[in-house]
């Protein structure tokens, strides 16, 4: 790989890991600032129960922005979600300006007020397992998200979440 290619891969990885930290910290606007104006986000899963490739959630950048702004008006489970991710592959496009990355993802829930905080606040359990499939553009060494598909394996989602994953 060219030195340039290696730098692009690093920029992509950096953007993905930053996105995880910002999402972990519920810094929604800062997360969205890593995304292009035309950003498309979706959560999908294949269901062997109904034999259907499902879309659990989808939104563009504007929708995500209004949705996250309105979060304080909604009742919610405030147990923080913490991601553990490893970028498995980064494929840089021929133009050297776009890339597709596949990231292995595990999200743990750090129990706070979800069930009985006296018993389980502070406890962690597995919330979901999946992958990020991201498309990014790279300009001047900075990678910006064009598209994120969260591909879930988990279909037993219990209470679910109001938050982007």
């Amino acid at each position, binding site marked *: 790989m060219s030195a340039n290619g290696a730098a692009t891969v690093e920029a992509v990885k950096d953007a993905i890991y930053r996105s995880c930290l910002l999402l972990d910290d519920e810094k929604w606007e800062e997360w969205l600032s890593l995304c292009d104006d035309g950003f498309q986000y979706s959560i999908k899963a294949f269901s062997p129960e109904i034999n259907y490739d499902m*879309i*659990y*959630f989808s939104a563009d950048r504007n929708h995500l922005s209004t949705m996250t702004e309105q979060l304080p*008006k*909604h009742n919610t489970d405030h147990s923080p979600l913490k991601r553990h991710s490893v970028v498995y592959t980064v494929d840089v496009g021929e133009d050297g300006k776009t890339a597709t990355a596949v990231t292995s993802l595990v999200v743990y829930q750090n129990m706070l007020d979800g069930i009985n905080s006296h018993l389980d606040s502070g406890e962690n359990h597995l919330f979901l397992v999946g992958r990020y499939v991201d498309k990014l553009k790279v300009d001047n060494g900075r990678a910006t998200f064009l598209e994120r598909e969260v591909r879930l394996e988990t279909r037993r*989602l219990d209470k679910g979440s*109001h938050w982007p994953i």
Partner: protein
Amino acid sequence: MPARNRKQWMTDPQLPRGDWVDSRVYSDPEIYEEELEKIFKKVWIPLCHESELPEPYDFRTATIAHEPVIMTRGPDNAVRAFLNVCPHRGMMIERRPSGSFLEGQPSGNPKRMTCMFHAWQFDMKGNCVYISREKEGYQDRICKEGQGLRRLRCEVGMGGFVWVCLDDQPEHSLEEWAGKPFECIREAIDTEPLEVFHYHKAIIGTNYKLWHDTNSEFYHDYMHYHNRVTGFNDEYFARKNIAFDHGHVNVSSFEVKYEEYEGFESREELSFPKFPPNQWYMVDLFPGMNFNLRGSAFRCDIVTPLGPNEVMIEFRGLGVKSDTPEQRRTRIDHHNSIWGPFGRNLHEDLIGVAGQGTAMRPGTEPRRILHGRHEDNYIHDEVGMRHYYDEWGKWVNRLPSDPTQAYKSPAAAAAE
């Protein structure tokens, strides 16, 4: 009233008995087992949708009241249900959630349900068609002709759901059982074949009836920011709860103003066959199934009780089979924005019932749970729950407001 001491707190409310229930109906292990025997093994339960087994030899598995069930589609296109239990040594015959028997399995032939353990094989009608080394082991004492599966009552209906009843002699046909409450949406869901596009599940530490209660009362719209801003108008308050025989209820429609919630659009452009746009009907079936037709999206919740304090809820979303890809996409978005696992309302509903479950663990002291809002059956009237618990009391022969006593009608209890 100021905060109460224990005696005051434990005193029955100044309301007729039908206006509250004792929390032991939600937490007592003995009552829970009785419910499985006396209710869940006796009534029609929708287990899946016909679109989940679209082709001959497709199957789908589920459970009712501890019992594993398999539904198959035969080469004659008929959907049948059986206990998913091998007559030999009792293994569960099929372990996958769904699939096809067209291809052979490691232990057996194509077009057969095969028990992997000792390779007994069954056809789509549940006939036992092969016992390995039959003569050598059983001589003429047991033969495959006498080893068919346990067949179960099975009907496809009410929008193409597959309904199963563990009782061979159910008191009512599916039509008699559920036809009336479904009338309000029958044309919308029975004019054209439907298809499931959404499935996810939740296992929640709460009693199954608490989920059904939440589906049966709209007073909790206070919990949903989305519903408050899109719904609290004159038309909403003109909706009525309507009680039907067998403990079922439905809620009449009104026009939802989706555009009042920032980021949402009207659902005018897409509906169901013969169903006016932006309408919203709800059908709550005893003992815990919910069908919710809201403009472009049709949701169904099926509960599988797992304990006095644990329930699995399966959530499905359905569209019309002939949807164009664009129409389907619109339905999926509309379903998910409110009812998906990452949508606005479902998460809140589940937090609500999980909180009730936490406060009503088996062993907590009996509390009175109020179902006493009377508003001429209008939307925040709790008649749906009152109607349900009166039916429930008859099935388990217990008085909902004091489950240690035998059932009495609300009128008889009030007269005491």
